[in-house]
């Protein structure tokens, strides 16, 4: 069964009297464990699509279903619950909480889900090891390099064992080496955990990692991207 199903989803932004159709009747399905790249030029609707899937925004029309549930009509609290349990995010700007250490940042989603102390400790230790940052656990974001911060963000996204991880331009702020390292880690964790990864990107080197590529243009699906 598809974990994500969009049927004729539309999203329009109004800026004064100007209307921008960011998504215009998008229908897509995503299966568990996918490693999918959303590609397309700026303004094609990649980020908007991720925001709808990530329950950060709601469509104006059509439906978005996560695990069979139509989330378009969920309340703010229901969407927050769903994000906490099922969706991990990796942002272009790393998005760590600056006053928390790497360990505490990874622990945060587990605290939000009231995971018990011992289990939390084991999970955070395991994830920091998986992203190669065991020795940086006590460092705060401003003491970490961009690549390290993004690896902490990946570990944090995986912490609650979500159904999917949504990454918006995850390598855009990283140099080639760190970008490759981040993608290698995401690919490995996708294979090891079975968590679906969907990432929006411009970077052809990132696209090369994807097993499926969905092309968007002017808010429409240009190519559904059968799994490679």
């Amino acid at each position: 069964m598809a974990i994500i199903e969009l049927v004729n989803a539309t999203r329009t932004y109004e800026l004064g009297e100007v209307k921008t159709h960011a998504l215009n009747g998008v229908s897509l399905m995503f299966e568990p464990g996918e490693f999918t790249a959303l590609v397309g030029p700026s303004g094609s609707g990649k980020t908007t699509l991720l925001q709808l899937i990530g329950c950060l925004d709601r469509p104006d029309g059509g439906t978005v279903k996560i695990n069979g549930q139509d989330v378009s009509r969920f309340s703010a609290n229901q969407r927050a619950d769903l994000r906490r349990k099922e969706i991990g995010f990796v942002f272009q700007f790393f998005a760590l909480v600056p006053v928390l250490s790497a360990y505490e940042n990874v622990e945060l989603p587990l605290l939000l889900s009231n995971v018990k102390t011992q289990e939390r400790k084991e999970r955070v230790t395991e994830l920091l090891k998986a992203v190669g940052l065991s020795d940086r656990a006590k460092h705060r974001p401003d003491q970490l390099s961009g690549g390290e911060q993004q690896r902490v963000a990946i570990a944090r996204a995986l912490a609650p064992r979500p159904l999917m991880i949504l990454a918006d331009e995850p390598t855009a702020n990283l140099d080639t080496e760190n970008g490759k390292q981040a993608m290698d880690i995401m690919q490995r964790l996708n294979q090891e955990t079975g968590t679906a990864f969907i990432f929006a990107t411009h970077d052809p080197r990132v696209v090369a990692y994807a097993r499926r590529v969905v092309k968007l243009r002017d808010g429409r699906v240009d190519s559904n991207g059968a799994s490679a």
Partner: protein
Amino acid sequence: MPLSKLWTIAYRDLGRHRRRSIFTLLAVGLGLGLLLVMDGLISGVVADSLANSIRLRTGHVQLRADSFQEDQLSLQAKDLLANPDELAAKAKELSEVKAAAPVLWSSVILNTIDQSAGLQLMGIDTTSALYDPIRSGVTAGEWLSPDDRDGILIGRVLAEELGVSAGQKVNLTVVNSDGRPDEGTFTIRGLFSTGIPGYDQSAVFMPLDKAQAFTGSSGRASLVMILLNNQNDANKVAAALSAPGVAALTWSDLNKFFVETMGTAMSFYVILDFIVILIVAVIIVNTLLMSVFERVREMGILAALGMKGRQIRVMFLLEAATLALIGIAVGLIIGAAGVWYLATTGIPIGDKMAAVAGSNFALSATMYGRFEPISFLNLSLATLIVVVLASLYPAFYASRLEPIKALHEQ
């Protein structure tokens, strides 16, 4: 999410802008400290003045003829007590009573060679414990003996103003009970100082027998003054001693003007309290709003991770409460130090300034503060509550940010 973890984020955030946080909590501390010091000073002055008034002017209970008017100091027989000794003896039988004695009050004019002053004559039982404070405050000469026929006692402040000293003779003029003027020459037996310049300036003491003879009020008295072991027993004692034609007034009746005036003054003071606390609250709100505006994207991240609006609100309220609590601790230290200084050293205002307060306000020449635990508690709680209430706005603002907009904030 455990509250302790939300608090961890909240208090660490205060460390991000240390200087701003320190200035904010100093504002809370100074505001609260100022209020505590002012409150301690006013409470001290009010309590001190009331205690002085009871100690020197009113006692805890007074028995008077129904028709007696304090402001007229009438010597007419109908306005005086006919059996003051009996009433005083009856009062002394009560276990709550520490001392009781008849007093005769009258207006007199004291004349020296070149000056005169209008005073209140007090014919007193010089052996009574009622006058211990004055007896112990004799600064020159000696205390009056009961059978002294021409001795008087005046205040040091008055003596200085009139340029007289112990041992000198002065004239007293009175309008006696028959309405005729009478005059006598008296010797200043001693000078007293109660520490209340207004009182020392206006009173002249004379043994009761002599005062009765001088004013033609033989055997009568203006009132019986009663001092209690515990002032809370005043109503009980007044009820026990009231009789037909005799009014029994308690210290709260007798200091009504003072108590009511102070009550009005205190209500203005509460407004001042409120204004200062409001200013402190505005400072806290400003700090929190700045913190919210700086952390909009962070709120977006927390929301994306699944943190609910309620938890974001709690986080900001904890931040405000932390600022308030540390500020309150600073304020309590400042307040306690200030009140301690005022209670031990006080603020000398000088005899003349104290005398300006008049006879209804028994103001001491040094204003002392008083430590009022209840005011420390009330003001601290009020500060905490007002700050937390004022923080609701920034907290709600933060919790209602749209995650999608917040994430795109630069």
